[in-house]
């Protein structure tokens, strides 16, 4: 791209930024508030968990694991918001990247079981012994090494997103079509992982984990540790995304969201920008999945179901797309509501979730974050 085109671009970019102008001042402050709240939450929960049982502020171990799970969901929501809220790609397949990250972590945890499985085979996980397999499939090699696993957690979802995105963005598949093929992608993966021949435990998935890096996954301290790790991961993800969105790349992304053809005609390589952010988003989703699996103790093909991906989209929609903290808020809020509803009125949860979908899309197109911002701007006006 020549410098000349860059100059002409500025005008358009100004325009794109203009629409977001009232936001940018608030965004700085919003970010800061969010980061401080998150840090306070992590430290607060850690301290309260160590209080004696029965204390008014005591946070139970169950609650810690639950919150840890929510935090991984929040990371996933940030990933979806990055591509939907800022790039305009509605992915209905992000659960696939989440689940892939989860499976990679699951494979490592399976290898860590060693000979403590039901069949006591030091090399093969139980389900392979059960299927009369004699040796580990080639794609399981290396997963006993944590560093390799950690790399794969990012690489596997990232690679899939790269291949998929390279084809899709190059041929300018967008809008509804892109949403539908992402859905098909996760659906195809779900069907594939249900097959026993795949070597990922089929229907039952991977479970019965024991330890991670030598720490017993069933001990309360390790659970607290995983919660803190999830919180830190969320914090870092948030900072990374925020940094990218403030950079030139982020501004181009927003321009693509608002006027894709215009951005392309000006001379930006729209497909490359899309691909870069899509791959990044998939890696973040994979990281979320990897943190999720040791906390819930199981990963199975159900995680790939298209329904899960759509649910993530709803968290983001409810929280407010186009704002990172909105996505986090949505993920935490909806999941808390889900836990509460399924405990109190199990029948009513789907009604409530369904209504939330409808009401939010009809009445709150910018979600809770939009509502907050609206309040603030009216206050400022009066």
């Amino acid at each position, binding site marked *: 791209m020549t410098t000349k085109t860059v100059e002409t671009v500025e005008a358009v970019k100004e325009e794109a930024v203009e629409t977001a102008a009232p936001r940018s001042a608030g965004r700085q402050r919003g970010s800061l508030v969010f980061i401080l709240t998150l840090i306070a939450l992590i430290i607060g929960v850690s301290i309260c968990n160590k209080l004696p049982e029965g204390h008014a502020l005591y946070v139970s171990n169950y609650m810690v694991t639950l919150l840890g799970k929510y935090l991984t969901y929040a990371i996933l929501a940030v990933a979806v918001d990055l591509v939907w809220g800022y790039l305009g790609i509605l992915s209905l397949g992000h659960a696939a990247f989440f689940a892939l990250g989860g499976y990679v972590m699951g494979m490592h945890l399976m290898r860590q079981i060693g000979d403590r499985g039901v069949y006591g085979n030091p090399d093969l996980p139980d389900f392979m012994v059960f299927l009369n397999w004699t040796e580990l499939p080639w794609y399981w090699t290396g997963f006993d090494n944590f560093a390799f696993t950690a790399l794969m957690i990012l690489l596997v979802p990232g690679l899939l997103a790269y291949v998929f995105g390279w084809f899709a963005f190059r041929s300018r598949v967008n809008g509804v079509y892109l949403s539908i093929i992402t859905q098909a992608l996760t659906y*195809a993966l779900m069907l594939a992982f249900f097959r026993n021949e795949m070597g990922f435990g089929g229907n039952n998935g991977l479970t019965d984990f024991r330890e991670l890096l030598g720490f017993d996954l069933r001990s309360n301290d390790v659970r607290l540790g995983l919660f803190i790790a999830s919180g830190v991961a969320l914090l870092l993800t948030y900072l990374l995304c925020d940094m990218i969105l403030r950079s030139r790349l982020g501004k181009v992304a927003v321009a693509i969201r608002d006027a894709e053809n215009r951005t392309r005609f000006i001379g930006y390589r729209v497909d490359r920008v899309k691909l870069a952010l899509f791959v990044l988003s998939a890696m973040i989703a994979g990281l979320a999945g990897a943190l999720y699996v040791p906390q819930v103790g199981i990963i199975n093909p159900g995680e790939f179901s*298209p329904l899960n991906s*759509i649910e993530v989209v709803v968290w983001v*929609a409810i929280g407010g797309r186009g704002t990172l903290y909105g996505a986090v808020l949505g993920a935490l809020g909806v999941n808390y509501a889900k836990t509460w509803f399924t405990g109190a009125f199990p029948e009513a949860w789907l009604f409530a979730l*369904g*209504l939330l979908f*409808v009401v939010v899309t*009809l009445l709150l197109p910018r979600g809770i974050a939009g509502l907050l911002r609206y309040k603030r701007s009216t206050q400022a006006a009066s």
Partner: protein
Amino acid sequence: MCSLLATAANAEVKSGIDELDGPFTQFVEGKGADRTKALDAIAALERNDTREVLDGILNGDLMLHKATDTIVWASLDGRKYTMQSLDRSKDLGSDTKRKLSRLKVTNSIRSHLRSLIASLGLRSDNPVQRLAAIDALMETPEQLPDETLTELLGSESDKKVLASLHALEARKQAISDNPATRLQALETLKTDLSGSSRSLVQQMAATDVEPSVQEAAAKVVIRQAEKVTFFARLETVFFGLSLGSVLVLAAIGLAISFGVMGVINMAHGELIMLGAYCAWAMQQLMPNALGVSLLLSIPVAFLFTGLIGIFIERTVIRFLYGRPLETLLATFGISLILQQLVRTFISSQNVPVANPEFMSGVVEINSVFSLTSNRLYILAFCLVVFFLLLSLLRYTRFGLEVRAVSQNRSMARAMGVRSSRIDSLTFGLGAGIAGIAGVALSQLTNVGPNLGQAYIVDSFMVVVFGGVGNLWGTLISGMTLGIANKIMEPWAGAILAKILVLIFLIMFIQKRPRGLFPQRGRAVEAG
């Protein structure tokens, strides 16, 4: 004891029917050829119950009651036999096992009885019985005398039975000593693809003493194998079309709402499910008339889901036009609500939907190729729905207005088309078609709250593959995907075939983002 038996054997055996007394005595007391002759005599009487009597001898249901020297029908009831007279007119009480003796049936008698029974069936008035009798003789054609066969061939009027007789004739010829006759047999066997005929020809190809016959048989083996492969392919195509018709039915309503209106209706699967529940509800209302209730449930489902569709359009979708991704979310919410409604008010379990009689059954084209009626009906039904819909859009005032609104809304409004009313009706139409598809699906799969979810991804794929806004595209893409799935299934397995089709579709959309038959023109860019 011995003397008792002797007296029994010497006495006149009574059957209770005079004309049978003689033959039965001969059968019980006689030896070797006498006994077969006795059986021939019984068969020659041509009584109404001859077949039953012969079966009785063969199966041991007819026994000799020693005390009275009578032939009786005996059935074991606990430790005793209950006895009936031979014409089943009188109950003769019961007696212990040892008071009755079985009629002696040796292997040669048994096979003689079988061929007698078979040739009796050959002359039956009922063509179905004649067919059964011929089938029984297929493995042992030598039991049928040549004269009888010639006579039967001359007198038979039923086409199917005649064809069967020719097949039997060919089998007889195939084991003849004359090589010319055997060659002639091959000519007939060539067209017969049943397993027994093929193995017979294979046997001839391998073992016939006459080289020319052997050579001819070998040729026939190859031709038959070719035909069998051909019909196997035809069957795959039929299964593919059948799967395709299901896909088209599920997708065609979506093609209306998505293609014509640009609305992503994620609740489409749930509307299909509700249609299937309509079929179930109608069956609950009229449990004794399955066929009628199924036919009635088609309009009922159309109206019911159509009204729900109009309601959804009026309350939700109308506020979201031009924002396809948001309609996607809102309708997904609706789909969750509809699912939960069914779970709460009906059941979270599957409900049973019975197939009426005309839906179950098989249409047999030949011995290696047959079509199941329910799939045939659904294929036909799918085509009927498709062409009705096509002509509705093409030839009616309503269709004209739908097309006008979808092409240029403001111009249509300027011409006096009430576009918001058309929107409601179009969406209702799409929903109604989904309901009809549900009725059809209720005949093929389990009806439960999750029925719709299973079809939603597939239906979107069909619409996208075919090209949005093009009904013909939907038909062709549905059928293509169905056939592709079934072609891959034998070597890849059902699930892998589905995955491969999905991957193919993902690749295809990259190449042609607007489907097989894209809409052309300026309206496209606005989307």
